[in-house]
C-alpha cells in the first residue's frame, strides 16, 4: 500500500503514452510495487522532446480580451503549467488566476468529445464529415435569407475576426458581433469619445493622488494584470506612493486597496463627479445628499484634488449613466492636466477596439424573436447566460431554425443549438492577438488536441476551399521589435523552445490550414514565424475587420433613475474578479479560490451592511431574498463593512444551469432580478439600475468561507507603518536576545544555514555530532538558506499566487458537491463547498484579509492582506513532535514534509502557530473515491515532479522544492553553482504585484538577501523564536486629511 496509490498512472513515465496507447497497469500482482506496468515507447520520437524534461512554448492567453503573453510548460506532450511571458510588454511575466486556470478549460472533463447534432431533444455525437455536410446543406437551404444570419463571437483582437468576416461575407452573412460581457463598455465608449482610443495606458507611478469612482482596475476594469503591475510599482514608492481614494457603493478588491473609501449610493456617482469638478449643477452638498455620505468627505477630496498636482480620476460605474460618469472623469482629468501625464492616450491598448455592445445583442434578440433569422452562430460567448433573463435571449433563439455553436463546453447557449462544432482550446490552436498597436502576440498549439475537436478557423478555410479567403499581409508598423531572446526566461527556469517548424509537425495537414494562412500574412513567411515564436511576439498590426453593420436596435425607453425605483435598498451587481460574468465557473481552481474580498467560495452571497442587517435580524449565513420589479433571488447574507448601508450587492459568475459539473447548480445568478436595461449612450449592459426589497426567509446556509476572524486581535500578522515611522531615524527594532539561543538576530539570522536547527545540534556548540546541519559538513548542504520575502506594500490580495500553487503542486480542490463527507451512514453532505465549511480547504498559500478600525461600522477602516504559507521555521515547532520523522529540517533551510513517511497523527498541525499544514481527509488522489479531485482528463495537468498525496497524510508548502532540485540538476549538469535569482517559486513567478521574492538568504547576491534586511522587514510571531524563513515587509499607510491613522 503506497502513499500515493491514487497517483499511479499520473507519473512522469506514464506521459510516454502520448500516442494514445491505452492501459498502463494490467492487473496487480501482490503489492503495488509489483504491479505489471507497461512501458509504452514512441513510434517515432518527436523532435525537441526529452522524456521528463519540459519544453516551454510562448503563446497568448485568450481567457480575457487583454491578450497577455504566456509561456506554457509542456512535459512529454502535455501542457502542465501556464506562466507569464517575461518578454511580453503587457504582463511582463505576471499572470492572473483566470489565465492560469485556462489549463482547466483545456482539460475540462465536460468538454465535448467531438461534434454533436440535435436529434429531437437530445444531442448525439456525429462525425466531422457529417457535421460539415450538415452545415453546408443547411446554409445552402437558407439561401438569400442568410443576409439575416447572426454570428456572435467572443471579443478578441487579432486575425481571426478578419478571416471570420471574410467567410461570413462569402456566405452573404453580415459581419459578426464581437461580444464580451465582461467589458466595461461605458468607460470604453467614453475613452473613445474623450481620447479617441478605447483604452489609454494608465500610469499610476506618475500620480500623487488616485481617485477611482467604481473603476475596479485590479478586478475587471480594463487589462487587470498590466494595471496591477503598474499600481504595485506605484505603491512600492513608499513615502512617494500615490494616495488612493475609492468612491463607490461597495469596496471591491480595488476599493480595499484604497487608503480611503468614500461610500456612495449607486447612481450618485455622476453628481459626485460634477461636484468634484465644480462643473454641472450638483454642489458638494447635493452630491453628498444623493450619495448618502458626509459632505466633509467629498469636500476634503475636492480640496485634495486641487492641491494634489499629478493625479488621476478613473470612472468605471455600471449604471445607466456609466458613460456620462466616465466622460465627467475624462473632463476632470483634462481640467487637472492629467492627460498625457498619468493618462496616456498616446500608447493605448487596442484589445478593446471594436467590441460589440449589449445594445447590439438586444438588436439581435429582437431580430431573432421576429423570426427572420435563418441561422445563428455562437463561438466563445455565452449570451444566454450573461444577458439578463428579462431580455429573453433563450426564447428568441428558439425561433431560429438552425443554431450552430463552436463552443467546446456545454454552456447554456450551446445546449440550445442544433449543431455543435467544438473548437480547439486556445492552447491547442494557432492564432494571434493585438493587445497594443505595433505588437502582435502569437498563439501556437502547445500540445496535440485533447479531444476530437477542430479549430474553427480551419473549418472556415476548409468550407471555402481555403484559397478563397485573402490573406492580407500584417502591416509592420514602426514599432520596435521586442527582440528574440527572452530576458526573463532564465528567471523562469525555462528555455523557450519554438513551436515545431511548419512542415516538421507530424499532425494531419488539415489541422494547419489556419497556420499556413497566418504564415501567408507574415512578411518573411514560415522562417519569420518560427523565429518570432521564440518570444511569441512580432512587430506589426493586424488588419481590422469591419465593425458589424446591422440595423441599429430601436432605442430603449429611458429608465427612471435608480433613486426613483421601488425598494428599500439599492441593488448593486458586479462581475466576480475570479469568475467574471460566468466564464470561469467551470474551472474548479477558480470555484475553490476564495473571493479576494468576501473570502467565500463555491457560493453566491448577498453583501449587506452589518448595521442594517442587525436591524432586520439578519446575520451571516441567514438566507435573504432580494426582490425587484423583475424577479427575486435568494442567497445567504454576508455582513460586509465595505458596503454603503443603503446598498446590497451580489457577485455575478455563478448560478449556471449548465456548463459542466463544476458550474451547474452552484450559486445563484443575480441577473434574474435585473431588468434588461442598458446605458443609453454606450449601449453597455447596465447592472445597477434598480432598488430592491430585502426580506429574511428564515432559512440558513453556512457561508462557504475560509475566514475565521476578520480581526488580527493585535497579533501583528499583517503589520503596517506610517510614512512618518518610515522616515524616522533607524532604531534597533530587532528586539531582544532570547536566552539559550545562540546569537539571535531575527533577520541577519537568516544568513546562517539554519538559525537553530530542529534537531538542536547547532544549538549545542559542544555537540560532537553536528551532522548535515553543520556548515562544515562535507555535503556542504548547509551552505544555503532558502527564504522568501513578501512585500505587503505591493500585495493587493488578488490571489494569483494561490492558483499558481494549485497548478504547480497538484493541490486537490475539495469543494465540489460530491466531495463532502457522510452525514449519516446513508446520506452525504452534498452542499457545494461542504468541505470548506469544515475548514478543509488545501490552500498551501492563502491570502488572509484583516480589517483594521471600523469598529464603529463606519466607512473608515483599513484592510491588510497577508499571504500566509509555511514559514519554513529554522526552529520549527512541528518537527520535534512528529513521532516518525515525517517532518524535519533539511540542511538548506527547508521545513520538509515527507508524505510517504507520514502516518497522519496531525500533531504537527496542532503545534504550528501559523496553521499552514493541510491534511488529506479523503482520498482526493484516488480515482475510485467519490472525493477524487482530478477526473480524467484533469489529471493530465498534474505536475509529474510532485507527488500526488494519498489520504491520511499531512501536506504543506514545500517552497517548490521540485524547482529547487531542478535548478540544482541543471546547475550540476552545466558544471556551475545555482546562480542568483536563477529560478523562483510558482507563487513568486505568477504574482502580478511582484510582492513575493524567493531565493537564498545565505548568499548576499540573491535579491531576497537584501530585501530580508529591509527596515520594514519583520517575522510573524517572531517572539515564539521560530526563526521563520518567510520575511514580511510592512505596508505603508497613507492617511489623508479625512482619515485618522489606523496604526
Amino acid at each position, binding site marked *: 500500500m*503506497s*502513499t*500515493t496509490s491514487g*497517483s*499511479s498512472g*499520473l*507519473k*512522469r*513515465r506514464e506521459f*510516454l503514452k502520448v*500516442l494514445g*496507447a491505452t492501459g498502463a497497469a494490467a492487473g496487480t500482482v*501482490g*503489492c*503495488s*510495487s*509489483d504491479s*505489471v*506496468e*507497461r*512501458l*509504452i*515507447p*514512441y*513510434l*517515432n*520520437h518527436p523532435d525537441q522532446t*526529452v*522524456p*521528463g*524534461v519540459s519544453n516551454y512554448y510562448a503563446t497568448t492567453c485568450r481567457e480575457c480580451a487583454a491578450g497577455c503573453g504566456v509561456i506554457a510548460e509542456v512535459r512529454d506532450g502535455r501542457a502542465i503549467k501556464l506562466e507569464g511571458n517575461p518578454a511580453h510588454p503587457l504582463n511582463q511575466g505576471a499572470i492572473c488566476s483566470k489565465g492560469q486556470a485556462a489549463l482547466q478549460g483545456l482539460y475540462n472533463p465536460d468538454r465535448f468529445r467531438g461534434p454533436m447534432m440535435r436529434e429531437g431533444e437530445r444531442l448525439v455525437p456525429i462525425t466531422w464529415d457529417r457535421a460539415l455536410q450538415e452545415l453546408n446543406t443547411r446554409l445552402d437551404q437558407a439561401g438569400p435569407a442568410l443576409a439575416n444570419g447572426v454570428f456572435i463571437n467572443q471579443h478578441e483582437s487579432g486575425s481571426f475576426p478578419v478571416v471570420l468576416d471574410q467567410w461570413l461575407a462569402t456566405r452573404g452573412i453580415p459581419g459578426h458581433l464581437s461580444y464580451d460581457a465582461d467589458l466595461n463598455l461605458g468607460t470604453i465608449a467614453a475613452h473613445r469619445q474623450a481620447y479617441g482610443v478605447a483604452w489609454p495606458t494608465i500610469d499610476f507611478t506618475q500620480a500623487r493622488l488616485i481617485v477611482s469612482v467604481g473603476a475596479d482596475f485590479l478586478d475587471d476594469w480594463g487589462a487587470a494584470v498590466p494595471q496591477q503591475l503598474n499600481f504595485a510599482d506605484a505603491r512600492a514608492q513608499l513615502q512617494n506612493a500615490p494616495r488612493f481614494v475609492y468612491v463607490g457603493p461597495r469596496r471591491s478588491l480595488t476599493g480595499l486597496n484604497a487608503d480611503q473609501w468614500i461610500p456612495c449610493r449607486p447612481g450618485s456617482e455622476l453628481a459626485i463627479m460634477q461636484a468634484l469638478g465644480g462643473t454641472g449643477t450638483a454642489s458638494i452638498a447635493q452630491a453628498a445628499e444623493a450619495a448618502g455620505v458626509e459632505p466633509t468627505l467629498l469636500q476634503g477630496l475636492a480640496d485634495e484634488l486641487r492641491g494634489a498636482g499629478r493625479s488621476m480620476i478613473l470612472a468605471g460605474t455600471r449604471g445607466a449613466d456609466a458613460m456620462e460618469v466616465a466622460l465627467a472623469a475624462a473632463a476632470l482629468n483634462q481640467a487637472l492636466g492629467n492627460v498625457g501625464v498619468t493618462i496616456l492616450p498616446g500608447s493605448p491598448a487596442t484589445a478593446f477596439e471594436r467590441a460589440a455592445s449589449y445594445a447590439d445583442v438586444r438588436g439581435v434578440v429582437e431580430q431573432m424573436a421576429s423570426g427572420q433569422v435563418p441561422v445563428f452562430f455562437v463561438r466563445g460567448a455565452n449570451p444566454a447566460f450573461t444577458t439578463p433573463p428579462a431580455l429573453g435571449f433563450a426564447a428568441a433563439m428558439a425561433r431560429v431554425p438552425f443554431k450552430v455553436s463552436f463552443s467546446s463546453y456545454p454552456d447554456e447557449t450551446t445546449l440550445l443549438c442544433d449543431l455543435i462544432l467544438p473548437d480547439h482550446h486556445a492552447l491547442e490552436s494557432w492564432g494571434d492577438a493585438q493587445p497594443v498597436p505595433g505588437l502582435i502576440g502569437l498563439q501556437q498549439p502547445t500540445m496535440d488536441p485533447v479531444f476530437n475537436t477542430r479549430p474553427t478557423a480551419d473549418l472556415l478555410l476548409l468550407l471555402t476551399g481555403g484559397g478563397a479567403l485573402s490573406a492580407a499581409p500584417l502591416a509592420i508598423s514602426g514599432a520596435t521589435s521586442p527582440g528574440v531572446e527572452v530576458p526573463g526566461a532564465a528567471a523562469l527556469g525555462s528555455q523557450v523552445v519554438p513551436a515545431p517548424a511548419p512542415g516538421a509537425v507530424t499532425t494531419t495537414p488539415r489541422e494547419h490550414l489556419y497556420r499556413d494562412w497566418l504564415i501567408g500574412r507574415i512578411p518573411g513567411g514560415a522562417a519569420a514565424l518560427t523565429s518570432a515564436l521564440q518570444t511569441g511576439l512580432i512587430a506589426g498590426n493586424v488588419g481590422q475587420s469591419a465593425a458589424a453593420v446591422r440595423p441599429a436596435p430601436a432605442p430603449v425607453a429611458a429608465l427612471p433613475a435608480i433613486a426613483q425605483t421601488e425598494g428599500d435598498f439599492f441593488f448593486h451587481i458586479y462581475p466576480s474578479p475570479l469568475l467574471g460574468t460566468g466564464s470561469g465557473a467551470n474551472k474548479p481552481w477558480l470555484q475553490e479560490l476564495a473571493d479576494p474580498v468576501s473570502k467565500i467560495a463555491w457560493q453566491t452571497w448577498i453583501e449587506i451592511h452589518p448595521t442594517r442587517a442587525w436591524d432586520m435580524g439578519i446575520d451571516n449565513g441567514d438566507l435573504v431574498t432580494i426582490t425587484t420589479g423583475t424577479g427575486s433571488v435568494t442567497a445567504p447574507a454576508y455582513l460586509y463593512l465595505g458596503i454603503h448601508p443603503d446598498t446590497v450587492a451580489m457577485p455575478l459568475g455563478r448560478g449556471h444551469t449548465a456548463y459542466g459539473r463544476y458550474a451547474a447548480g452552484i450559486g445563484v445568478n443575480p441577473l434574474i432580478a435585473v431588468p434588461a436595461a442598458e446605458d443609453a449612450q454606450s449601449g453597455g449592459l447596465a447592472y445597477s439600475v434598480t432598488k430592491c426589497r430585502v426580506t429574511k426567509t428564515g432559512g440558513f446556509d453556512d457561508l462557504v468561507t475560509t475566514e475565521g476572524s476578520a480581526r488580527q486581535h493585535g497579533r501583528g500578522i499583517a503589520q503596517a507603518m506610517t510614512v512618518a515611522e518610515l522616515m524616522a531615524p533607524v532604531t534597533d527594532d530587532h528586539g531582544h536576545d532570547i536566552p539559550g539561543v545562540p546569537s539571535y538576530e531575527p533577520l541577519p539570522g537568516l544568513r546562517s544555514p539554519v538559525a537553530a536547527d530542529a534537531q538542536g545540534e547547532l544549538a549545542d556548540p559542544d555537540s560532537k555530532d553536528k551532522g*548535515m546541519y553543520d556548515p562544515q559538513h*562535507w*555535503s556542504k*548542504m548547509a551552505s544555503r538558506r532558502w527564504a522568501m520575502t513578501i512585500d505587503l506594500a505591493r500585495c493587493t490580495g488578488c490571489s494569483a499566487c494561490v492558483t499558481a500553487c494549485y497548478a504547480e503542486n497538484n493541490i486537490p480542490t475539495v469543494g465540489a458537491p460530491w466531495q463532502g463527507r457522510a452525514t449519516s451512514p446513508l446520506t452525504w453532505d452534498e452542499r457545494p463547498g461542504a468541505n470548506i465549511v469544515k475548514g478543509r480547504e488545501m490552500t498551501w498559500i492563502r491570502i488572509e484579509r484583516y480589517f483594521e478600525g471600523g469598529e464603529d461600522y463606519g466607512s473608515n477602516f483599513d484592510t491588510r492582506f497577508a499571504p500566509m504559507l509555511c514559514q519554513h521555521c529554522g526552529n520549527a515547532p512541528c518537527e520535534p513532535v512528529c513521532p516518525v*520523522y515525517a517532518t*524535519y529540517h*533539511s*540542511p538548506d533551510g*527547508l521545513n*520538509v514534509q*515527507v*508524505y*510517504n*513517511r507520514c502516518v497522519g497523527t496531525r500533531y504537527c498541525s496542532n503545534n504550528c502557530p501559523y496553521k499552514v499544514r493541510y491534511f488529506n481527509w479523503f482520498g482526493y488522489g484516488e480515482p475510485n473515491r467519490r472525493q477524487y479531485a482530478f477526473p480524467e482528463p484533469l489529471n493530465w495537468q498534474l505536475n509529474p*515532479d*510532485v*507527488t*500526488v498525496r494519498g489520504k491520511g497524510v499531512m501536506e504543506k508548502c*514545500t517552497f517548490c*522544492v*521540485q524547482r529547487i*532540485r531542478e535548478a540544482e*540538476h541543471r546547475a*550540476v*549538469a552545466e558544471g556551475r553553482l545555482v546562480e542568483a535569482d536563477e529560478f523562483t517559486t510558482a507563487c513568486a513567478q505568477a504574482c502580478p504585484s511582484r510582492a513575493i521574492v524567493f531565493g537564498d538568504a545565505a548568499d548576499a547576491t540573491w535579491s531576497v538577501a537584501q530585501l530580508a534586511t529591509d527596515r520594514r522587514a519583520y517575522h510573524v510571531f517572531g517572539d515564539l523564536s521560530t526563526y521563520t524563513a518567510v520575511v514580511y515587509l510592512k505596508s505603508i499607510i497613507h492617511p489623508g486629511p479625512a482619515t485618522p491613522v489606523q496604526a
Partner: protein
Amino acid sequence: MTRRRKWAAVPGLAVIAVIATLLSAYSGAQTAQQAGAAQQAGAAQQAGAAPAPLPTVDEVRASIDTVAERGPWAYSGASSPQGYAPEQPINFPHPVHVQGAGMNCLYCHFSANKAPDPGLPAVATCMGCHSIVATGSPEIQKLTQYWSDSLPIPWVRIHKVPDYVQFPHQRHVNGGVSCQTCHGEVQEMPRVFQYASLNMGWCVNCHVERQVRYDCSTCHY
C-alpha cells in the same frame, strides 16, 4: 517437587520462543559469506575464455541474493520484487546488442545522461537497423509487425521506484554511477530481471558511502 518445577517451565518456554523469533530474523553472517563466494565466481567467469556461454536466467537469478547488499537484519526487504524477470512481448537480448554489436546503453536509452527519465527507444529506432538486419528471425518479425501496424511495443516494466520517489537518472549517470550499479550486468542478461532490491535502505547505503546528500527531501517531494 517435579510437578512444581514442570509449571515453572511455562514462562521459560515463552522466553525461549521470543529469543528464537529474533534470532531467526538474523541473516547477516551467512549473507556475507555467500557474497564473497559469488564475487569469486563472477571474477572467475570474466577471467575465462572470451566467448563464455551466457548464464541462463535462473543461473543469474540464483546469484542475486548474494550480490545485492543487505543489512545484517533482514527485515522489510521481503516486499521487494527483486529478481522479477517477466516475459517480454519481444524477447530482446541485451547481450547480443551490447556485447555482440557493441552498442552503448545511451544509444537506445538516449536521455539517461540528460534527463530524469532514461528514455525508451522509439520503435523507429529499432527499425533503423532491423529493416535490414536479421529480418528473418521470428522476434524481429514481431517487431516489424508492430511497426507495420504502427503500434508501440508494450514492454513490461521491471525496475520501478514508487511514485513518491524522485530518481533523476542524469544526476547518477553523470555522477559516475554506472548503469550496472543499479540494473546489474544487463549486457549479460538473456532476459532482464530486477537486479537490486531498490529498497530505501539500499539507496541510502550508497548515498552515504559516496558522501552525497541523503536527507529525505533529496528524493521525496
